[in-house]
C-alpha cells in the first residue's frame, strides 16, 4: 500500500515561530499545485493552530506538525503535549458582543480555522491535544 508523503516539523515555543510552519506549508502547497488563495488560507489556519498550541496548552515542550500530502487533500496535524482542553466548552466569538463590552477581545482562532479549512477536528485529553485540519484540493487544481 502506498504511503502518503509526510513532512514533519518540530517547533520550539518561541515568538513568531509559527511563521516557520507557514514557510513549510507554502512549499508543500506549491508542490501540490494549490491555488494562491488556498495556500494563504492554509497559512492563516496554521498560524492560528500554532498560536493555540503555544498559548493554551501551557506546555513548555515543542509542538509537532505533520503535513500529510494526499492526492486530493492536504492534512495537517498540530500536536502538543500540554494540558488539553474541553472542545465543547468553547464558544465561537461574535464581534457585536465584544465591541463596547468588557468581554475579552481574543478567542478567534477556532472560528478562523473552521472558516478557512474544509475540516477541523480535535482530540484532546490531559496528556495533550492533536488538531487535525484538512484542505481539499479543488478539482481543477
Amino acid at each position, binding site marked *: 500500500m502506498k504511503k502518503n508523503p509526510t513532512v514533519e516539523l518540530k517547533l520550539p515555543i518561541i515568538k*513568531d515561530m*509559527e*511563521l516557520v510552519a*507557514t514557510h513549510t506549508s507554502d512549499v508543500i502547497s506549491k508542490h501540490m499545485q494549490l491555488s*494562491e*488563495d488556498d495556500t*494563504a*488560507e492554509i*497559512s*492563516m489556519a496554521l*498560524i*492560528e493552530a500554532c*498560536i493555540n498550541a503555544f498559548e493554551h496548552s501551557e506546555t513548555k515542550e515543542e509542538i509537532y506538525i505533520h503535513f500529510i500530502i494526499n492526492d486530493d487533500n492536504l492534512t495537517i496535524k498540530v500536536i502538543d503535549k500540554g494540558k488539553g482542553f474541553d472542545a465543547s466548552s468553547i464558544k465561537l*466569538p*461574535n*464581534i*457585536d458582543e*465584544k*465591541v*463596547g463590552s468588557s468581554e475579552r*477581545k*481574543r*478567542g*478567534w*482562532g477556532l*472560528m*478562523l480555522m473552521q*472558516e*478557512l479549512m474544509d475540516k477541523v477536528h480535535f482530540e484532546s485529553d490531559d496528556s495533550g491535544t492533536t488538531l487535525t485540519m484538512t484542505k481539499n484540493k479543488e478539482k481543477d487544481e
Partner: protein
Amino acid sequence: MSKILNTESKGDITIISTEGYFNKDLGEDLKNFTDQEIKKGGKHFLINLKESKIVNSIGASILIEIIEELQTVDGTLSFCNLSPIIGKTFKIMGLTKYCTTYENEEEAVNAIG
C-alpha cells in the same frame, strides 16, 4: 520584523503604514500610536497594509480595542491595500462591520476626506 513604517496626516486623516507580520507587537504599537493621536484630537485613521501580507488573530483583535476608543470620539478606522487573506480574516471576524476597507490610499483619502 513588524513595525509601523510611516505615519502622516492628510487633512483630518492620519495614515499609518505598517510593515511585516501583523502580530500582537504590531497591534500594540498601533494601539499606542492611535491612543496618543486621539488624545491630541485625531479622529480618522487609515491603516495602509500594503507591506503587511499576513496577520494573526491576536494582532487583529487589538483592532477591536482601537475601534472602541474611536467610538468614544465619533471617529473612524479604515484600511487599504489589504492582501486577500487579511481581507478574508477581517470579514470572518466581523471587523468589516466596524471599519471600511479601500483598494488603495488614494481611494481611501478621497472617500474619508
